[in-house]
C-alpha cells in the first residue's frame, strides 16, 4: 500500500526528469490523462461536475472497505492529466488521510506555473471536492461504527454520495448520515402521497434543511453549518417546532432579524405547526462550532 506521501514523492521524481522541458512535462501530463480510464457515461451527471473548472470535470466517488475510491474525467486531455495526478495520489486512501493530505507535489513540481489562473482555481476546486467527499465518507464510517457499537441490528448501508448531497448537507452528513441520503425521497413522498405521517425525526430533518437556506449576511456559509443552531425540537402530533439559536456576537446587527427569518423559513413547511425561535448567548458562539465543511469553505483548514 503506497502512502500519499510515497506517491507524491514518485511524481516529483518523475517530473524531475523533465527539468526545464515544458513540452516534456506536458507530454507526461497528457499521457496520464490518456491512461486514466474514462468515466462511465452514467456518472457524467451534472451532480458530478466539479464547479469552478473552466473545462468540464466530472468526479465520482464512493466508499469501499473504509477507503475512498475516486473516478474522474474531463473533456480536455490536459485537465484530465492533472486530475489523474490527484486521483493517483488520493484514490484508495482512507478518508482521514485524504482529508488531512498535504499536497506538496503541487509546489514541488511547480504545477501552478503551467496553469492559467483560471485553471489554478479549477485545481483548487478539484482538491476541495475530493476532500469534501473524504469528509462525508469519514462521518459515514464513524456513523456505522457507532451504529455497531450501539448494537443496532439493522445493517446501515453505506451508500454512494453524490457531490450535491455532500455540498448540500454539511453538518448533517456528520451527524445524521443515513437520514440525509433519504431526504430527496421523502420530499417526493410528500408530493405524491400527500398526507402520509412523518416521524418527528423526519420533520426535524426537513426543518434542518429549511434552516440551511438562511445565511448570516456577509458569511457565505449557512447558519446551520456556522453552528448557530443549538437545538431543534419537534413536538408531535401537531409538530410544533422549537429552535434555540445564537448569533455570532451579541452586538451582531442581525441579532433581531435572523431568528425571525429562521421562524419564517421553517413555517414554509406545511408539515409543521407553531414555530418558536429562542435566541440565546449561552454558550456564546465560537469558531469551533462550525462544521468542518464550513471551516473548509471559509478557509480555516
Amino acid at each position, binding site marked *: 500500500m503506497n502512502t500519499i506521501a510515497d506517491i507524491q514523492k514518485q511524481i516529483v521524481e518523475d517530473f524531475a526528469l523533465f527539468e526545464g522541458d515544458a*513540452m516534456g512535462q506536458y507530454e507526461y501530463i497528457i499521457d496520464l490523462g490518456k491512461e486514466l480510464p474514462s468515466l462511465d457515461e452514467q456518472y457524467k451527471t451534472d451532480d458530478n461536475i466539479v464547479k469552478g473548472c473552466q*473545462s468540464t470535470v466530472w468526479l465520482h466517488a464512493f466508499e469501499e472497505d473504509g477507503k475512498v475510491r475516486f473516478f474522474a474525467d474531463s473533456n480536455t*486531455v490536459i*485537465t484530465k492529466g492533472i486530475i489523474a495526478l490527484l486521483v493517483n495520489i488520493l484514490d484508495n486512501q482512507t478518508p482521514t488521510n485524504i482529508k488531512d493530505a498535504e499536497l506538496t507535489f503541487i509546489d514541488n513540481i511547480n504545477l501552478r506555473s503551467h496553469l492559467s489562473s483560471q485553471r489554478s482555481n479549477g485545481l483548487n476546486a478539484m482538491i476541495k471536492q475530493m476532500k469534501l467527499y473524504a469528509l462525508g465518507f469519514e462521518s459515514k464510517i464513524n456513523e456505522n461504527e457507532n451504529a455497531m457499537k450501539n448494537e443496532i441490528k439493522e445493517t446501515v448501508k453505506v451508500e454512494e454520495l453524490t457531490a450535491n448531497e455532500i455540498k448540500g448537507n454539511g453538518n448533517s452528513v456528520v451527524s445524521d448520515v443515513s437520514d440525509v441520503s433519504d431526504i430527496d425521497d421523502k420530499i417526493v413522498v410528500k408530493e405524491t402521497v400527500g398526507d402520509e405521517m412523518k416521524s418527528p425525526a423526519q420533520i426535524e430533518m426537513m426543518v434542518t434543511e429549511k434552516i440551511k437556506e438562511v445565511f448570516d449576511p456577509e458569511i457565505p456559509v449557512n447558519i446551520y453549518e456556522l453552528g448557530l443552531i443549538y437545538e431543534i425540537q419537534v413536538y408531535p402530533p401537531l409538530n410544533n417546532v422549537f429552535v434555540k439559536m445564537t448569533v455570532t456576537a451579541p452586538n451582531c446587527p442581525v441579532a433581531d432579524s435572523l431568528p425571525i427569518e429562521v421562524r419564517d423559513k421553517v413555517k414554509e413547511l406545511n408539515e409543521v405547526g407553531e414555530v418558536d425561535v429562542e435566541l440565546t448567548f449561552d454558550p456564546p458562539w465560537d469558531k469551533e462550532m462550525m462544521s468542518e465543511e464550513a471551516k473548509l469553505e471559509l478557509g480555516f483548514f
Partner: protein
Amino acid sequence: MVKAASNKITKIKQQFPILQQEVNGKPLVYLDNAATSQKPQSVIDAITNYYTKYNSNIHRGAHYLAEQATIEYENARTKAKEFINAESDMLVNFTKGTTEGINLVAQSFGNTFLEEGDEILLSAMAHHSNLVPWQIIAEQKKCNIKYIPVLEDGTLDMDAFHLLLNKKTKVVSLGYISNALGTINPVEEIIEASHTFGAAVLLDAAQAAPHLKIDVQKLDVDFLAFSGHKMYGPTGIGILYGKEKWLTEMQPYQGGGEMIKEVTLKGTTYNELPFKFEAGTPNICGGIALGAAIDFMNEVGHDFIQKQENEVLAYGTEALSNIKNLHIKGQAKNKAGVLSFIIKDIHPYDIGVLLDKMGIAIRTGHHCCQPLMDAWEIPGTARASLAVYNTKEDIDRLVEGIEKAKIMLQ
C-alpha cells in the same frame, strides 16, 4: 514587388517592441489580435509624451498645459472623424470602448425612443457586448428581442433577416465583422432594408476598425462603435459615432462635469454635442494615443493592411485546411482576419495550451459568443486572428505547432 511588400512588413514589425521577445524560449508569434492588437512605438511614445510633457485636465484650465492637452485631445477626435468619414467632430464621442458605446446607445436611445412592444433585432453570432445591453433595456422598456439566425457557413441568414424586419423593429444592432468567425456581414443591405422600416442601425465595428476602411456616410449607418485597443491603440478608449438627428434628441447617458452647460439647483442645461455624452474627465491620454494609432494605420495605408491580411488569411485558410481532421468554422466568402477552427476529438483548450508552450499566442473558448457555440454544439473553437504584422511565416509556425500538438494529443 513581393520582396518590397515583405520588406515593408519587416519594417512594420520592427515598430512593435513587444513582438521582438521570446515566449517560452521561442520567438513570439502573436495571433490573438481579435482580442487586442499590439501597439507600435509611436503609440507608446504618444502615451509617454503626454505624461512627461503636458498632462493636465482639458476644456477648463486656462494655462499652457491645459491648452496643449485640449488641442491634442480634440485633434485626436478630428482624426477619428476622418478615420470613419463622419460629417462632423461633434458626432464623434469618446467612450471607453465598444462595450460602452453600445451601452450608451441602448440606454440613451432606448430611454428616449423605445416603447413597450417595440422590437430589437440582433444576431445570434453577436458578441456578448452587443446582446446584454439590449437585453437590459428590453427588460426595462418591455421590448422584444429577435435574433437573426446564423447559417452553417457562419453567415447571417439574410432571408430570415428580411422576414424578421417589420414596422415594430426600432433598432437593428449587429457586428460589422464577427469576432468569432471573421464573417463580414452584408451591412449595406441590412442598413438599407432597416431604414425602409424606420429602424435605426448600430454597427459594432470593434473588429472592422482594424481591417476595413470605414465610411459612416456611405454606409448611412445610424450608430457605429469601436475600441482603440483592437486597432493598435491603448485600452480604455473607443469611439461612438451617431447621426446628429439621434444624438441631439437622445437623453444623456451619464451626468457629471463636462456634459453640462449650466447647472442651477433647479436643473441643468446639457452641453452641446459631443460633450453631452462625455460626462467626467475623459481618458485624455487614451484619446491622444488613439489619434497616434490612427496615424499609424494611415501611414501603413488601408489598402496595404487589407491586402497583406487577406493574403495571409488565404494562405492560412489553405494551410489549415490541409491539416487532417481540422475544420475551419466560419467559411464565409467575405471574411477578415480570423481563422477559427476545431479539430476532431481534441478540445480547443488543449491545443491552445500546447501552442502557448511553443510561443504561439491564440485564443480558445467561446469568444464571448456563447449562443453561437451552443447552436453549433461545440465547446468553443481555437482562434488565430491577424493584424498587419502577421506573416506567412507566422502561419507556418502555427501549422507546425498544431501538427505537433495533434501528435501529442492523439
